[in-house]
């Protein structure tokens, strides 16, 4: 690791979370309070409270089955929460559909990659631009001048976004035929194309080698800096989480067991217990 990621100072906000100091005079992008969901009798997530700052990189960690992806699914309304509220940029998101949530500003990637495999890389990004470069179906069928100008704009924007990861040359390749790491990067580009204010990354470094992971870390910070958006990521690679995340939330059995800066989390006994088990007394 050549590059050091500088973290800002964290300050407390009223809902008992912490956000970076630079975001404190702006309203938080996401506020979850008492969020919970039951699957039958199982409390998958319970009393989840979290506040994320405008330009924060937040981490969500925890052992397998802790409910991390379930939280992403709650935020994007793949599941409707049983309890609690989610405020996105101060707006209540209850009753919204996944597509509406995306238009409100949350974009995500998936743990098991979900690309449009039969389409080209460029088309995948253009589908991400669906609500950005707008024209009606009739305009498309009749190929009115507006169609050409919008298509040109979508093409230019798609290549610009692909260049974040240096993927312009792959634009005409079929998405399903890309190597694994490139597919993960393409998913991030597609999510960015929807012009989000909060980007949710579900295990972005899964299956990547150390050098790819290092590159990804730099790119996540770069994305945050260029687009001035908040990023929330689920990741098992502790090196990645501890070096780029400003605030970390640790989940176990659907409950938050710790929240804080990487240093606080690393020395938190509850976290160590959840990961390594309780030390037997001699």
């Amino acid at each position, binding site marked *: 690791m050549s590059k050091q990621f500088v973290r800002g100072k964290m300050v407390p906000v009223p809902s008992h979370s912490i956000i970076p100091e630079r975001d404190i005079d702006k309203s938080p992008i996401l506020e979850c309070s008492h969020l919970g969901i039951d699957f039958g009798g199982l409390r998958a997530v319970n009393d989840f409270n979290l506040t994320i700052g405008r330009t924060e990189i937040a981490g969500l960690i925890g052992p397998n089955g802790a409910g991390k992806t379930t939280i992403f699914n709650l935020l*994007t309304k*793949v599941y409707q929460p049983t309890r609690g509220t989610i405020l996105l940029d101060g707006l209540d998101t209850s009753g919204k*559909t*996944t*597509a*509406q949530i*995306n*238009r409100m500003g949350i*974009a*995500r990637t*998936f743990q098991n990659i*979900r*690309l*449009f*495999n*039969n*389409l*080209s890389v*460029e*088309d995948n990004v*253009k*589908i*991400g631009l*669906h*609500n950005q*470069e*707008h*024209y*009606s*179906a009739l*305009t*498309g*069928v*009749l*190929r009115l001048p507006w*169609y050409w100008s*919008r*298509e*040109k704009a*979508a*093409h*230019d924007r798609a*290549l610009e976004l692909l260049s974040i990861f240096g993927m*312009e040359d792959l*634009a*005409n*390749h*079929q998405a399903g*035929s*890309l*190597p694994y790491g490139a597919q993960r990067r393409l998913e991030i580009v*597609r*999510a960015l*194309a*929807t012009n989000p204010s909060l980007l949710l990354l579900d295990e972005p470094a899964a299956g990547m080698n150390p050098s790819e992971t290092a590159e990804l870390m730099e790119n996540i910070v770069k994305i945050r800096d260029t687009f001035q958006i908040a990023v929330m990521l689920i990741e098992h690679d502790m090196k990645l989480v501890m070096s780029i995340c400003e605030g970390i939330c640790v989940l176990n059995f659907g409950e938050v067991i710790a929240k804080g800066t990487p240093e606080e989390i690393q020395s938190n006994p509850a976290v160590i217990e959840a990961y390594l088990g309780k030390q037997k007394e001699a």
Partner: protein
Amino acid sequence: MRSYLKNMKTITKVDYATYLGVILAFIVVTICQSQGLVNRSVSGMLVPICCYVCMSISLNLTVGILGELSLGHAGFMSVGAFSGIIASMSLQSSISSELGRMVIALVVGAVFAAIVGFIVGIPVLRLRGDYLAIVTLAFGEIIKDLINCLLVGWDENGLHIALNVDGTKSMSTLGLSENGIEIIKGAQGATGNDRIATFTMGFVLVMITLIVVLNLVRSRTGRAIMAIRDNRIAAESVGINVTKYKLIAFVTSAALAGSAGALFGLNYSNVTAIQFDFNTSILVLVYVVLGGLGNIWGSIIATVILYVLPEALRQFSDYRMLVYAIVLILVMLATNNPQVRALLGRVIPKRKGAALDE
């Protein structure tokens, strides 16, 4: 900019080749006709071929591009055929131009089929899974039975419509005046129609269908539709309203089938509802599957070959459905066979990105 042009080229090359192929075929057939090289039985097949080409292109939009199975496409053809016949027959006195009535009939057929498609689609396309196949299968049968008891006539006072559900009504219950025309006579179907469909009109309809489907697929709307096919959850996550785009694809497909049906109806003096039964739906589905799902030019070629073949081998016509089943199974086996695919891969230039497969 260069890669933009390159990309546009690869996309549009196939499209333009398809247009060119259809236009060339039309020119060749027209020249042969004018030279008297085409016998009666072949020239009688030209309009139905155009109709079925439109049917398979439009069904490909639902099955290949949208990825939903529809088993009642002939139902939309039926709606288009009978509404088109009603339109053309009732305008017989007011519009003398055959072309004018033809165009109106095609538009009316498309509009009615689109309305019916919307009504069928709106509850079903909100669901996930195979419901569309089940509902369209039932829809095809319902439309057939409904038209079987439909009585329609026309006189100076306008259209007279009655539903002969209990079997007690006949054409006389419509109370037509002396100059009235009986258009649809229940199970007998529409008889004594004007045969105003022409091969040129069929060609124009094929071109319109092609342009609509290909331009739709190459647009933002088409990308959204294909995104839903490839991964519905991911499509929702990038802000695509899944139900809306499913409906756009399904209703467009129904409308195109409706105008193909109108052309078909106006090509025969007798048309009955039985002609548009489940077998017809499956026949069109076979054209689409054999031509390749999502492959428009493939649909056209498969339709022409599979329509002409049984007619050319008329003595085997009884075994047509049997042959279809066997051909379908063989083609599916062949296209899924790795050795055959490798062979095809050598003949057809490699798809982009294949080099990255390891």
